[in-house]
């Protein structure tokens, strides 16, 4: 197990290195300069600025310089937000993004579980059809459409929750709900089919024949076993939430990282693009790794062998 983890960590570092390298050189292909007001910059001014930031050097030299700084934990300064370090920008903005993301995951999983369980137990009834229809809608309506509807009806018409801005805990609810729609739909559909499968298993029949109450059978045997595969879904779901936040944050004026990422690409803020790409990739790789490990704990049939093969 230990060897497996060490090996995985090694691969993670290599993957990150490849991502950094690719992003760096792809970024060089983008036209334009990271400097503000490019419409007004004259060529001689541009040369002076390029020299000041070392952008007049060949790409290879810039690359090694970047990697050198990176190894010392230095992500550089933003071009757009002059004077701010990329590190401080990420630290300031990651909190709100993480919070609404995590909250969406929790809302989504709980509601999804309830919907999935109910529709499996009431298989082929109105309730089941209703839940399935909801799930299909949730999968097919993009979260930003849902966000706009929530904002208008809950925020403007009913005035139950804040329309946008980031002022108190209530401000986090609408963005989280908008983000959780995909999670609800995915979890509900998944749990429903898993439950239906488990319900037909021999050990469920055995449990029932032992005289166990229906509630105990469902909770102890059916739901628990149906839950295991759901864990595998959490990885991809976390990723879909991360990408979902890009739009949701903009709609609800959440001071998060996602919106900053899109903006930095548009204005070609080299150091910020690199910093946030690195951060997102590291997070993604780590989540996948975590899910693999948790899965091993939950399902004893999975063994991490010496060779590192799963």
């Amino acid at each position, binding site marked *: 197990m230990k060897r497996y983890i060490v090996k995985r960590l090694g691969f993670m570092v290599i993957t990150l290195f490849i991502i950094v390298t690719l992003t760096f050189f792809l970024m060089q292909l983008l*036209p334009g300069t990271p400097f*503000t007001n490019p419409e007004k910059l004259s*060529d001689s*001014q541009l040369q002076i600025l390029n020299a000041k930031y070392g952008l007049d050097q060949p790409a290879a030299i810039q690359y090694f310089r970047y990697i050198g700084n990176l190894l010392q934990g230095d992500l550089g300064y933003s071009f757009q937000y002059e*004077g701010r370090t990329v590190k401080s920008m990420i630290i300031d903005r990651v909190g709100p993004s993480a919070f609404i993301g995590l909250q969406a995951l929790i809302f989504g999983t709980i509601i999804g579980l309830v919907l999935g369980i109910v529709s499996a137990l009431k298989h082929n009834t109105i309730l089941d059809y209703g839940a399935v229809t909801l799930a299909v809608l949730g999968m097919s309506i993009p979260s930003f459409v849902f966000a706009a509807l929530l904002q208008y009806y809950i*925020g403007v018409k009913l005035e139950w929750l804040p*329309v946008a801005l980031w002022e108190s805990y209530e401000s986090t609810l609408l963005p989280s709900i908008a983000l959780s729609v995909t999670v609800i739909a995915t979890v509900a559909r998944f749990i429903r089919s898993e439950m239906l499968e488990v319900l037909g298993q021999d050990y469920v029949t055995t449990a029932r024949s032992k005289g166990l109450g229906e509630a105990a059978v469902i909770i102890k045997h059916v739901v628990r076993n149906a839950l295991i595969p759901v864990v595998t879904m959490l990885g991809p779901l976390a990723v879909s939430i991360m990408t979902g936040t890009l739009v949701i944050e903009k709609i609800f*004026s959440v001071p998060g990282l996602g919106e900053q990422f899109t903006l930095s690409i548009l204005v070609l803020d080299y150091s910020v693009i690199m910093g946030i790409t690195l951060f997102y990739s590291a997070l993604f790789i780590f989540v996948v790794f975590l899910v693999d490990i948790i899965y091993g704990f939950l399902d004893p049939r999975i063994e991490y062998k010496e060779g590192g093969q799963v």
Partner: protein
Amino acid sequence: MKNKKWFGLLFFAMFALLLAGCNFNSSEKSDDGTKKSGDEKDGEVAQVLNLSAPADVPTLDSTKAHDAIAFNVLNNVNEGLYRQDESNKSVPALAEKHEMNDDKTVHTFTIRDTTWSNGDPVTAADFEYAWKRVMKENGAYNYMIATAGVKNAEAIMNGEMDAEELGIKATGDNTLEVTLESPNPLFKTLLSFATFLPQNQKFVEEMGDQYALEAENILANGPFKLVSWTQEQGWEMEKNEDYWDTDNVKLEKVNVFVVKDPSSGANLYETGKIDRVKLTSALVDQYKDDKEFENVKDSGIVFLRFNHNNPVLKNVNVRKAINMAIDRNGLTDVILKDGSTPLYGVVAESFYFSPDDKDYRELNGDFNKGTPEEAQEYWEKALAELGQKEVEVSINIADSDEMKKVAEYLQAQLEDNLPGFKLEIKAVPFAQRLEIEKAVEYDLSLSTWGPDYSDPMTYLDMWVKGSSANRMDYHNPKLDALVVAARGETDLEKRYEMLLDIEKILLEEDAAVAPLYQRGSAVLLNEKVKGLVIHPSGADMSYKWAYIEE
């Protein structure tokens, strides 16, 4: 079982920690922050203005600031020698007296007795320090100091001289002497720009690389002071009681929220959270009959550049035909619907006035405004001169929604109205459009321009040969000579005549570009808000004269 409890606890703790790291905007906690404008407090109307900004402030260091959002904050919390007044004229502010020598090259300012928000007096040395710092730090707008004609600025920009040699000197605590290369009628106008603001050397050096990154790390000397600033969320200003003209400032508080999505902005307006919002064309239809709806002119212009090396576009009749074949009204009223207005000149309307207060546009009128029939006359003449029956050119555009819509409209108009004309649209990212333009490797280019200062010259001197903003190899020696003459002309009447003539050469004689429209904003403004001043360049708003009506 024990393990599970542990997990639960850990999870809960993590969640709580994250919530703590969320940095909710503190304005909610104070009573004032949530006040809607016009809410009554002890029988009196609360003088609170709530606004939104489309992005955070990149930097509040006046020597490096480069965007309208930062200029807005600086304009309202700081003050320089001059300030833009309600009619966009540059008027003395911190300068109590402004004298000059006979040839108008040495300007002596007497500075008002005022203080920074930390109690230090604002001195002449603060100006000297700040202006030299702009040159030293290569601030984004250092060329404004060169445009103002301050001695040696040009040479310092080109790295030929040291920043210390800039023509500015504090000759006493309250007297400042600025030396110009030659007389410059624009000097006064430029002085209200943020780049010319003073800075307190002691404070700036004490803050080091943290200067102007937080609300506490900047000093105010203007109508308002910045009391809070939360990254990506917004900032709050309060009336500055120590400001010399504070008796004329009526607002107690201004809150600005960062709202990036225009339809969220409209929704916030609906709930009364903000008092003013800019609408996108998609929202205009929904609100255009609202009594709080208004169209506001912006100073930015959109126009077509012609490549003057192109064998076809070199022909002045081709350019006139293209100019006349485009129905601008259809473009602004049917296609854009965002407050833009038709434009038949290169200087924007309703911001620039002659010494006897006439609008530049009114004086010069419309150029190359014609009917499709007139366009066809020029077109036939041009085709005969070229010996061609068909012309095929391409247009270089940025790939934004707005530009694509405009290009498609142009394509339809030109191909319909000019028989044998074919237009190919080449959409590229904005930065690419600019590079193609700089290299003059296009036929037609859909361009934009915004003024740097409140004077028609900012739209006119870009067309001289070798200017970095010419970008179409246009050259008319007559125009070049007039620009040089106008730069040195201190008789304002004569100078204005010259400015009018420059546009006549550019458009009437040469039809060197095809102006299309002046940008505008469709705005919803709370009817209780009065006196909010919108400027054409630099900072786009002044809150100094604004108030909430009962």
